[in-house]
């Protein structure tokens, strides 16, 4: 760990509502300049965690440090954070310029300085010419940009974002993801991003924390969390997963489809759990093509555009395979006998 303090350090924070733990003994360190995403199902505590960082909700226990300074009981206005809200929370009684100038006005910046700074972010966000518009005269995408400009105008070192793209449609959403990511890289801002959209989380983040029931279930870079989930919940929550009930015996897993070696499984261990493999690692064909395979028949084929999804019955068990849609199809039909093949490295053992 470096000598500089973490941008944000949460040290065993807890928040209880009506006797149930919304957040339970949670610790996290977020580095300066990091794009850090908190992902989780609704009710997992991700919004409560963000609210505690912002200061809207006070932790019942534990400590919150921002750039090394204790902030646990400080009100929001003392924390100096930028924030983009879920539905933007732009002030409807102010025009675009005054919305963006708000943090500067409150800080009593001179008019001249306010003007310079606001114009700077306006041009950064391609909003020149919109200064005197009212918020309700803007499209969703423009409102998003104003919210972003307001969060950045006073150059805070940390910006919190609470599902900022939730209200935009697919195409605009993807475009804004890239813009935010590029902006963050350029400005070196630390971003804490809350979302329930996994693709968004993987596309933008340096690290992802997946929360479940008030705790962090796993933290790490997107690829690591995707490829090596620690539990069956994580495997299913991030991406699609085949989870075949299995028994571990002498370093190999026994499944209804047969017994396979699995890398990384505890050599001497025994127990019940799952054999886990991602759909895109399974190859469906008339003949086996990988080192490991199982035989079965096709139950369903769905064309999903960029991929084709096959559901294959292997005895009682059903697995899903996803393959890139080529020109024409593989000539496979419902009920056809096929082999499902994979590389031994692609399977994992998950003890529940």
């Amino acid at each position: 760990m470096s000598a500089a303090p973490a941008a944000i350090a949460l040290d065993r924070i807890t928040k209880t509502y009506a006797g149930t733990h919304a957040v339970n003994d949670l610790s996290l360190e977020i580095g300066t300049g990091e794009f850090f995403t908190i992902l989780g199902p609704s009710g997992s505590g991700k919004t409560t965690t963000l609210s505690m960082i912002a200061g809207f909700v006070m932790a019942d226990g534990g400590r919150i440090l921002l750039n090394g300074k204790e902030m646990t009981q400080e009100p929001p206005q003392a924390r100096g954070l930028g924030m983009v809200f879920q539905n933007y929370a732009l002030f409807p009684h102010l025009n675009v310029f005054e919305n963006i100038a708000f943090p500067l006005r409150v800080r009593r910046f001179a008019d001249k300085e306010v003007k310079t700074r606001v114009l700077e972010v306006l041009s950064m966000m391609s909003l020149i010419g919109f200064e005197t518009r009212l918020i309700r005269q803007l499209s969703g995408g423009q409102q998003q940009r104003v919210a972003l400009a307001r969060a950045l105008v006073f150059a805070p070192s940390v910006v919190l974002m609470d599902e900022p793209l939730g209200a935009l449609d697919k195409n605009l959403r993807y475009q804004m993801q890239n813009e935010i990511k590029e902006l963050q890289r350029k400005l070196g801002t630390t971003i804490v991003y809350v979302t329930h959209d996994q693709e968004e989380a993987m596309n933008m983040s340096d690290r992802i924390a997946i929360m479940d029931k008030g705790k962090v279930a796993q933290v790490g870079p997107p690829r690591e969390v995707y490829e090596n989930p620690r539990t069956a919940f994580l495997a299913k929550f991030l991406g699609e997963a085949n989870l075949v009930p299995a028994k571990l015996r002498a370093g190999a897993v026994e499944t209804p489809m047969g017994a396979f070696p699995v890398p990384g499984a505890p050599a001497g261990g025994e127990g019940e759990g799952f054999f886990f493999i991602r759909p895109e690692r399974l190859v469906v064909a008339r003949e086996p093509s990988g080192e490991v395979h199982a035989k079965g028949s096709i139950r369903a084929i769905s064309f999903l555009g960029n991929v084709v999804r096959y559901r294959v019955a292997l005895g009682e068990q059903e697995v899903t395979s996803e393959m890139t849609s080529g020109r024409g199809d593989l000539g496979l039909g419902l009920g056809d006998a096929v082999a499902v093949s994979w590389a031994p490295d692609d399977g994992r053992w998950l003890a529940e």
Partner: protein
Amino acid sequence: MRRHPLSFCLSRAGIFLIALCLLAPIVVVLVISFSADSYLRFPPSSFSLRWYQRFLGDQRWRDAMVNSAVIGVMASLISTTIGFFAAYALLRARHGIVRGLEPVFLLPLIVPHVITAIGLYFVSGKLDLIGNRAWVAAAHSVLAIPVAYIIQQSALKAMDPALERAAMVFGCSRLQVLRRVTLPLAFPAIASAALFSFLTSFDEVVVTLFLAGVKAQTLPVRIWNSLVLEVEPTIAAVSSLFIAVTFLVLMLNRALRISRS
């Protein structure tokens, strides 16, 4: 063309009939006010403005109008301020005790006015405040606070709480949040509350009859008292003017709402 079944036509006729019944009392008063007859009679045999002239030429009626206006404005200021303060504090209160006070703020709407009137009368008699305009205004405020409270509370409740949070994150203290965000956004509701509180006071009879004495007689009380003595169309003329003021205030409220959206 769409078909209109019999049931549709019947229901339409019914609606119009009921609307007519609800309109009738007001229409009768308006028509009589323009009567040229020297006694109450409907429909009038001919029309004139004589009763309006008589009304405006009478010092006692003019005094009543001034009383109504002064008391109405005072009551409006008191109720709007207290109503806003109560709505703001109760919405933000997390604790059971303060929250539990909400029904108290709605009480005067629920308790029959006669009861409130008697209660206030007992209190006023003891304190020798009968006929004091400020005291009548205070008594009217008891009835107008629930109105001002409800209007402002629902506006504050409908306000996106993220707006106040945004103001806090961007550096505002509680007082700055109130001044920079909450008050400007609640302005239309505050104006509405002020207007409806005014109307509540302006229209009040029961409580005023007990407390006004001779000095602080308001317009509706004067109407009431004069009904016993001089049942003549002046009353219809005064009533019509009264209706006019009421609608003026409502139109003002409407115009304010429209200009803000």
